[in-house]
């Protein structure tokens, strides 16, 4: 081809292509540098690592010299290592050695590994990537001038908060320990509850850049092996740059992705994880997240609180019934209010109808407008309240209550009955124990209101049937989401709305407890 290209589109295309090509070349070069073997030249190794990390501010090379004169350096990540341990366990012993430059060539690093690092463990590192991987895990990498390779000595320090109460799943009676952000601590919390060799823990690393440790927990002999294999294979298929919380995995591994309803249970409670494992489910603990995942999970499971099992079974049953009433009320009440006041006034008792009509006489908005306005206002206040610090939160609550409750009614923008309805459902929705289900119900309330506004009770029914169809079509790792309600599974009714006493719960849930069905031997029941 001859001549000069002048067409601007072609030029732009060429520019983009060449930029992409440069990016690709740079990526290849970067990967080559990462996999490059560590050389015997100390200065060279330092230069390569500093170049690759762009002289990251949290990386530190500390040079030292042995008493005999041999030069060396320690590479570590600031605040990832225990300084006292590193100085006492590595720096001081190394500087006290009589090694000279003439001794280069001997397996000095092996000796370092054997003699200097007896506590935290040590491993040989061959390339740049290995060195960088180990320092992010709390390792101090020792280089000796003239000796190729390096040795990583574990002197890690874990930055973690202490174990506290679960924020979203508190109980009055029962265990108060909640998960924290450290994966190993969370594992130990589960292990404390299941001291059995049957508790199998598979470790995986997910996230190209975050390299997040993910632990898959199952109870051998109780959990269906196929379920474990399936979850493992779904986790292995994940190819994402980062996993910063367990919700990343939830969205990537769950069966039905296009739904607002939670199809796996995320919990802060180690006892709920242990209970799930005893029911034949699997659990996933993600390093960096205080929320573990339990799967498969059903809607009735989301309506269950850990407290149900720590109090009298009859009380627990009563509270479950109350929760289901709260669920139904929070979903349907605003829509029903709109439908009844707009289309079916005859169904409202006359004295109440008169009171409501009087209250609404000066309100310029139709019932649906009132309800939507107030629902959105409440959602805004709730959303704002969830973000602000505690001190401002109370001011926000007072402000919100005054503005919405007093000023709006006095100004004639909304009527007082609607405040009772919306405030009622705001409280009712909080009776649902699962925060993710609460959000889903809040979302689902709006179509019901619109249905009620357009077609009265008919509209509510149409929307409800559509919602029920959606819920009935959901599955969590092969288990129907509405089970045991639909499909009806009478054997699982023992722990559905009614929570039977433990002496009547002799078998695991039929939906999950597949391998070993029995929970109790004949004596305990």
């Amino acid at each position, binding site marked *: 081809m001859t001549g000069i290209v002048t067409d601007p589109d072609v030029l732009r295309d060429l520019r983009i292509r060449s930029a992409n090509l440069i990016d690709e070349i740079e990526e290849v070069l970067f990967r080559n540098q990462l996999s490059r073997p560590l050389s015997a030249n100390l200065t060279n190794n330092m230069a390569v690592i500093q170049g690759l990390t762009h002289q990251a501010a949290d990386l530190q090379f500390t040079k030292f010299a042995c008493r005999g004169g041999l030069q060396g350096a320690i590479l570590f990540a600031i605040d990832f290592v225990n300084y006292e341990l590193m100085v006492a366990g590595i720096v001081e012993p190394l500087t006290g050695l009589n090694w000279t430059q003439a001794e280069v060539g001997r397996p000095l690093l092996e000796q370092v590994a054997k003699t200097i690092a007896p506590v935290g463990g040590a491993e040989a590192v061959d390339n740049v990537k290995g060195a960088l991987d180990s320092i992010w895990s709390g390792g101090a990498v020792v280089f000796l001038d003239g000796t190729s390779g390096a040795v990583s000595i574990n002197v890690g320090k874990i930055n973690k908060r202490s174990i506290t109460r679960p924020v979203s799943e508190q109980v009055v009676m029962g265990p108060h320990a909640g998960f924290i952000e450290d994966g190993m601590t969370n594992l130990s919390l589960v292990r404390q509850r299941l001291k059995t060799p049957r508790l199998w823990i598979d470790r995986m690393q997910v996230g190209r850049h975050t390299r997040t440790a993910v632990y898959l927990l199952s109870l051998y002999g109780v959990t269906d092996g*196929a379920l474990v294999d399936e979850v493992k294979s779904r986790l292995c298929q994940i190819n994402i740059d980062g996993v910063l919380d367990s919700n990343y995995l939830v969205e990537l591994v769950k069966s039905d992705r296009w739904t607002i309803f939670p199809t796996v249970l995320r919990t802060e409670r180690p006892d709920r994880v242990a209970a799930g494992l005893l029911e034949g489910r699997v659990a996933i603990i993600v390093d960096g997240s205080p929320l573990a995942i339990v799967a498969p999970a059903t809607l009735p499971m989301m309506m269950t609180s850990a407290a149900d099992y720590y109090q009298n079974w009859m009380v627990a049953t009563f509270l479950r019934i109350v929760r289901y009433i709260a669920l139904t009320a929070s979903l349907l009440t605003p829509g029903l209010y709109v439908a009844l006041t707009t289309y079916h006034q005859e169904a409202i008792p006359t004295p109440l109808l008169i009171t409501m009509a009087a209250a609404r006489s000066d309100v310029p908005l139709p019932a649906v407008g009132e309800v939507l306005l107030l629902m959105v206002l409440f959602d805004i206040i709730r959303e704002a309240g969830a973000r602000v610090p505690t001190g401002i939160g109370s001011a926000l609550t007072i402000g919100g209550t005054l503005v919405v409750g007093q000023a709006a009614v006095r100004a004639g923008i909304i009527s007082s009955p609607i405040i009772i309805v919306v405030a009622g459902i705001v409280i009712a929705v909080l009776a649902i124990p699962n925060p993710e289900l609460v959000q889903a119900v809040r979302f689902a309330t709006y179509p019901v209101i619109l249905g009620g506004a357009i077609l009265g009770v008919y509209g509510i029914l149409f929307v409800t049937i*559509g919602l029920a169809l959606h819920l009935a079509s959901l599955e969590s790792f*092969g288990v129907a989401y509405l089970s045991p309600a639909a499909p009806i599974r009478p054997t699982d009714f023992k722990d559905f709305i009614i929570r039977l006493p433990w002496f009547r719960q002799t078998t695991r849930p039929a939906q999950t407890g597949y391998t070993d069905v029995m929970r109790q031997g004949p004596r305990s029941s």
Partner: protein
Amino acid sequence: MSTLIAKRAKHRVPLKIGHWELAFLLTTMAAGQESTVFNSIMTPIVGRDIWLSVLLGMGLGALAVVIWSALMARFPREGIETIAAQLLGPLRWPFLVAFVVLMTVYAAIAGRTFTSLSAIIFPTTPPPMFVVPLFALAVYGGILGIQVVARVNQLLLFYVDVPAGMILSMLLMGQQRMQRILPILAHGWVPVVSGGLMMMGLYSQLAMVLIFAPATVSLQKLKGALLAAVGMIGLMAMGHNVGPVLQFGALAKQLAWPSFAQLRLIQVGRDIQRLDVFAVVLWVHGYWILVVMNLKASSLLLKRLFHFDQDHWILAGLAIAAYGLSTVVAATQDVLFREVQLLNQWIFPSLGLGFPLLLLGLAAIRGSRRKHQSARADNI
């Protein structure tokens, strides 16, 4: 989906429909009609003896189940289209096409009936406002699969309909008098038989089980479940049809929608009344299931006849056709009732009972019996 899903589905969550799930679907389908349009047609004909018609219908319904079960036992895991192909050859086409047409037309009539009912509460709202969402939900349900519809049906049936029905019945009991069904057979047997034929038509609609049966989990237990469905339908029909007679006596014959008129009389305490608006729950559920079942059965039959991979587009097409028909059939309520009566007294029994009986007879004569059974691969 993954092998796990398939494995778990095989053991726990059936991809196909359970025999009880199917029985409950058929029960709801029939209950929606017998509490509304059947009640309105049969009460003027039979009057006080309506309970005898219901009993007669139950007997005929049980007989129909025996015939269908015998056919299914001879040809296990076979749909009506393959049974007909083996026994009738090319002659099967008129019958099977008649099945599709009848079910689609009946879905349209269900839409029209639903409009008529809804007009009681919303007299000025245009009919499409009710029928379009009803058909849209039917298509959505049909596309998700009959097992999903069955799950929703169970939810509504056991957690809404049955408790609501029981509460409403209890509230009505105080106003009902048993002696209002007397005298028995005051007008002879003819009206009772006529009503019984209507009930037979209702039961004949369950012949769509011959389309769904190959996809049921347990064919052996299907007969028992169907007989139970006959019993449940009969029991509900008894309540729905006898209730207005016990309430209004001979006056029930003159009411357009006797069971609905009955609900309007409910009063709790001084101020709570007009709970009839909540009865909408029962008929929306019943008519939605009726439309889904008829459209799904039709689309499934067409899919199998023409060897399509899936029936989503057929279902949508049939729904549009049924919607179009629902706007033109039955200009008035009287015409609507006549059409329903005609279909149920003659057409449904002919196809739902007569055709399977013909196939069973032919199979007996020719000694046809499918020995090896293999489950159909299609997912309903």
